[in-house]
């Protein structure tokens, strides 16, 4: 039992550290493609961390979703950046000191809350992966159905709106074929 708990702690720490390290690399590299890949690795490490915390369904979902999302982001990076390879070492930051301060203060505040708040008794055992998926399915199609449906409609609306914003406006002359 003790060995199993230590293993879980090790993997949470290891993947957590990897996620934070790759998160930092996102803003340290000049190459935008590397930035997108670093974010992909950060999110994948997070998925592995979820698996270590016995949230199997969410872990696999996170890895699958983020792999696709970040690949699309890498394509957009190549499309939109003036120097996607980072060979010119362009400076693309502003208000650096303020941002560092804000990030550091929010990190310290969250750590103080995490360490000093009494979170109550910790539960050592979690339901197995199959039971978790069944419970989540029943939750989504039962008590939380309205929230789930709202999320679905919102994402559909966002996709349609994003496509509508992104498509090239048709000029009147083109519309009539002249």
């Amino acid at each position, binding site marked *: 039992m003790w060995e199993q708990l230590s293993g*879980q*702690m090790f993997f*949470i720490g290891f993947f*957590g550290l990897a*996620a*934070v390290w790759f*998160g930092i690399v996102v*803003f340290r590299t000049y190459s*935008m493609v590397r*930035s*997108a890949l670093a974010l992909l690795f*950060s*999110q994948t490490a*997070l998925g592995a961390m*979820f698996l270590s*915390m016995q949230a199997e369904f*969410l872990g696999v979902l996170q890895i699958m*979703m983020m792999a696709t*999302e970040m690949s699309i*982001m890498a394509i*957009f*990076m190549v499309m*939109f950046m003036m120097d996607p390879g980072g060979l010119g070492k362009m400076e*693309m*930051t*502003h208000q650096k000191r*303020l*941002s560092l301060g804000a*990030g*550091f203060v*929010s*990190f310290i505040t*969250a*750590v103080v809350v*995490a*360490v000093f708040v009494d*979170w*109550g008794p*910790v*539960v*050592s*055992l979690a*339901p197995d992966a199959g039971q978790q998926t069944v*419970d*989540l399915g029943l*939750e989504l199609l039962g008590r*939380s159905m309205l*929230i*789930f449906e709202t*999320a679905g409609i*919102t*994402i559909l609306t*966002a*996709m349609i*709106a*994003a*496509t*509508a*914003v*992104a498509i090239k406006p048709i000029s009147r002359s083109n519309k009539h074929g002249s």
Partner: protein
Amino acid sequence: MGLELILALITGAALFGVGIYGALSQTNLVMIMMGVELILAGAMVNLVAFWRYLHPDNPAGQMFVLIIMTVMAIEMAVGFGVAIARFRAKGSVEMEEAVELKG
């Protein structure tokens, strides 16, 4: 066991801090979106840790993680839509050039 919860919460805090730095310091719209993704990832770690170590018998915790994932996807879709529109209009997605949006 409490140590695992603290470890996960500290990871969430670190991701949140890095995300705040990225969202505030970057001048490119796509890089700002990357910062926001990291902020949401920090929130997601906290939710999974709270579900696992405090209420593993209540699937509502996992449901909230799914909502955060939806928010991430929506942010990407809308952000890229805006980026394409901006690039088409001005030829760049540098936010320092978007001075006409200033109130």
